[in-house]
């Protein structure tokens, strides 16, 4: 892809994809976090 060797393509495309999945995983794990609607009271 983009004229790059396979290993470089994995690095250039794979790393962002991995962190995107990590972020989605974080959102899923924390889906039950309460208190997002009461900013001042939840600290």
């Amino acid at each position: 892809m983009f004229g790059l060797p396979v290993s470089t393509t994995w690095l250039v495309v794979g790393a962002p994809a991995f962190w995107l999945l990590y972020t989605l995983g974080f959102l899923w794990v924390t889906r039950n976090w309460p208190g997002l609607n009461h900013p001042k009271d939840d600290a």
Partner: protein
Amino acid sequence: MNTTVLLFLGLYFLAMLAVGVISMRRGGSSSMEGYYLSGRNVGPLVTAMTMQSTSMSGYMFLGAGSLGYTQGYYGFWYAAGDIGGGVVNLSVLGRRMRKLSQIMGALTSIEYLEKRYPSKWIRLIAAGLSVFLLGAYVLAQFIAGGKGLELVTGLPYELALAIAVSVILAYTLMGGYGAVAYTDLVQSFVMIIGIIWILVATLQEVGGLTAANQALAALDPTLLSVWGRDLAYEGQWGIVMGALLIFSIGYMGWPHVVTRHMAMRNPFHARRAGVYSTLWNLVFVSAPYILGTLAILVLPELDDPEQAIFALAQALLPAAVVGIVMAAIMAAIMSTADSILLQTGSIAARDLYERFINPNMEEKQMVRVSQGIVLLLGLACGIVALFEPPAVFSIVVFTTSVLGSAFLPSYVAAVWWRKANTPGALTSMIVGTLVAFGWQYLALDQVTGLHPMLAGVVLSSLSMVVVSLLTQASHPVPEHVLQAMAETAELRPLPRPLKAQQSFEMAHEALTLKTQERTT
């Protein structure tokens, strides 16, 4: 000297000063919590953007461009870790550190360590180390600011440095953390706009990414490899893993970055801030490495690879746009410099001066002392930056490795491991510092094939675990710390009575009393 570029830069500097004035009027320097943490009232977007723009220093426009120019796609190992740095930090530490720091009544990230691992030695060593290393980091950013402004405006380096330092000092002194965080927000947007603009212009110049890669392959096929020019790093997984670690998990060891958790308005905002961080990083982080690599085609005869991105902007963009790109470069430098400057000054004032020399100051007096120390530190670094400026890249990589190795296990274990105790944290800090420092000083990475950061983090983490376990009987974690950690783990708001008893000096005692009250 181009007047359009100067106009843009002038407007940008004025905007930063205006944010400083607004923060001051909102009470940014009226109390210690206001000055150090903006009253713990920072929302998720600002938290994410101040974290990212602070983490992405002038290195991104100087060092990253230079790495791309000299090593081609090998630089992507750094970008690969960097993209996840924000969300890792916020997901691992964010909510818990925010809550624990408030229960403990800590105002700086070093004070937090002493309250979690009660010992004056923790504070003394951590504060001393931070002031030394972060001071060097401030110096690197000032040098970058001076060099950047010199290149853009044609002003002499000394004058350019004086202007950059004066603007940073002015808004940091006026508004404290609030000014730093909100200027960082603006700067993060400027950085994104600037980097996209120069990237689009460069891609147009080289005929697109695929054509550029083909041209690079014709010049030297190893530039497209993940192992660097001439495959210099081939098979060196120890070095590569260190490159990945330094900017992914390494941020969790940086005192000036983890402070961002402590200033959040709501511990649960870590969730949204993590998403904003990833989105921003996905757009920004890889670009400087690509630009550095593409500069090989556009400007093959550059004398100084650190100037690759500056030079691309000047060569390819109209003057008005160069102004925006240059503002972006200055934004990257200033957003890091202001945060580190404030953090170093705060640590020197709160964790060294107040803690060990003059503990009986009034709150307003303490804010003035902090401002005085920030001013002195800024002036000192500015003066040092005038003489024989060392290579920015080397300083930044050196300090980040040592900071990450020294503090990462202590910050992570503080909220996640109930057995992490004072001897464990102390040993971990000392081992992490010595290993990372010695590894670089003795060039052991060349002998062992292991990056200093990798060696430092592994050995400091092992020290934390082994020493904590061995000393559980003689140095148990105090009961009030365990209770605070238990409260931190709960997914609920801090009980109001506990909040009402918050005192920066008496936080431990307040928590203990409250817990005893509940159980009797």
